[in-house]
């Protein structure tokens, strides 16, 4: 009982707290990095260098009025943010943050499949939000968002097949172990897959340059136009939690997870004294920084361009990548 329920529960609570705290600081980091990219200072008023802004924002969101529009579907309107937040949290169950069972909640043998299926549930929250609002902008944005998410999901899922071919397992822990055994991070063996998953990840999390569902110039606030207060806060939390998940997935699948650089080179064994979770978190931070950097750099795609890239560019490349990987694997 203690091992099957109590300790996992402690780990879950710690992990969820860590996720929520890092989401608040993630927003601060994003504002700061984009400000620096545009030669501004960013938030500076709250605390030294605006550090306490990370706490001021959630407090403001919590105390704001939470309006339900008169002709919205009341129950669905409340259900939508919950439905979008829960999958974003649950995915963290299968992500290994370190080499010890202490650092992950569950190591299930279909980890990657679980991850793909649970992240897909998030799309229900978005389409439900658009539908329940009973307002033009959220409806259009909800439709766009769901079409975008399912289009890019095909490309990403197809790409992950080639990663599984390389690693030979679906368990997230064993994928990292496979990278330790071969001594090669899969990112070096499958660079095309890495780029595809990165692009798909940006699209799945509605990040720039694929942030069509929230294109404020044409759809005002996107699918959460009608949301205010903490129900909007839940969507916000879900979006940034998804970003953290994607960064963790990219690191585990392509950049060796918790492994140190060059895991097979004995001369660098000194680096093993750095705990495994520090490697994991620093790599995740780099990927998250890359996401923000891309947002500060690239303009938004048009919607038809976005669908064209998803269906006509990414999917053929992904299929070709799977075939080439399989052929090479049989030949070697």
């Amino acid at each position, binding site marked *: 009982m203690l091992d*099957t329920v109590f300790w*996992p529960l402690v780990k879950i609570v710690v992990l969820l707290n860590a996720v929520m705290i890092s989401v608040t600081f993630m927003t601060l980091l994003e504002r700061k990095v984009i400000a620096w990219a545009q030669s501004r200072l960013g938030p500076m008023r709250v605390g030294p260098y605006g550090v306490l802004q990370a706490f001021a924002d959630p407090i403001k969101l919590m105390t704001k009025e939470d*309006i339900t529009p008169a002709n919205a579907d009341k129950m669905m309107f409340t259900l939508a943010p919950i439905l979008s937040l829960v999958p974003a949290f649950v995915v963290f169950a299968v992500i290994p943050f370190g080499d010890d069972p202490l650092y992950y909640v569950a190591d299930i043998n279909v980890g990657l499949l679980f991850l793909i299926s649970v992240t897909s549930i998030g799309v229900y929250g978005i389409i439900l939000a658009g539908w329940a609002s009973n307002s033009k902008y959220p409806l259009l944005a909800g439709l766009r968002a769901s079409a975008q998410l399912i289009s890019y999901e095909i490309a990403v*899922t197809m790409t992950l097949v080639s990663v599984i071919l390389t690693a030979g397992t679906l368990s997230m822990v064993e994928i990292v172990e496979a990278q330790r055994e071969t001594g090669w991070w899969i990112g070096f063996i499958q660079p095309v897959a890495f780029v595809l998953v990165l692009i798909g990840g940006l699209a799945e999390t509605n990040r720039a340059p694929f942030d069509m569902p929230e294109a404020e110039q044409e759809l005002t606030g996107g699918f959460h136009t009608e949301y205010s207060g903490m129900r909007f806060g839940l969507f916000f939390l879900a979006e940034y939690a998804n970003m953290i998940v994607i960064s963790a997935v990219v690191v585990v699948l392509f950049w060796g997870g918790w492994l140190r650089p060059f895991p097979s080179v004995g001369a660098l064994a000194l680096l093993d004294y750095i705990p495994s979770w520090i490697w994991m978190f620093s790599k995740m931070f780099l990927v998250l920084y890359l996401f923000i950097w891309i947002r500060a750099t690239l303009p938004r795609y048009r919607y038809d361009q976005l669908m064209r890239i998803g269906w006509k560019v990414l999917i053929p490349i992904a*299929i070709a990548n799977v075939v080439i990987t399989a052929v090479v694997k049989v030949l070697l």
Partner: protein
Amino acid sequence: MPEAYIPVLLFVLVAIAVAVGILMFTSLIKSSKYNKVKLQPYECGIEPDTDARGRYSVRYYLIGMLFVIFDVETVFMFPWAVIMDELLLFGLIEMLVFLFILVLGYVYAWRKGALEWV
């Protein structure tokens, strides 16, 4: 190994509890001032006179159907990819036949213009 899924189940329950708990907690401390205008849907200041749920482009339906077809076929490739070490040439040929049929459907959808957005 069904025991491995107990933490996952716990995680789902905790996540639901957190999401609902946040909403319940904030409903205690949030400010609220009733105003009829606030409850209108946002429409750039114009009072909406019709229901928002009207017709929308059939392409969304088309994309939805294509998604179901392609995503299910991709899921079939997962078990194949895991045991590829044992199947080798046999598995490769089998999957190439499967992929050929998949690509055939994909090319057909492309030629029919199902992937065009404008």
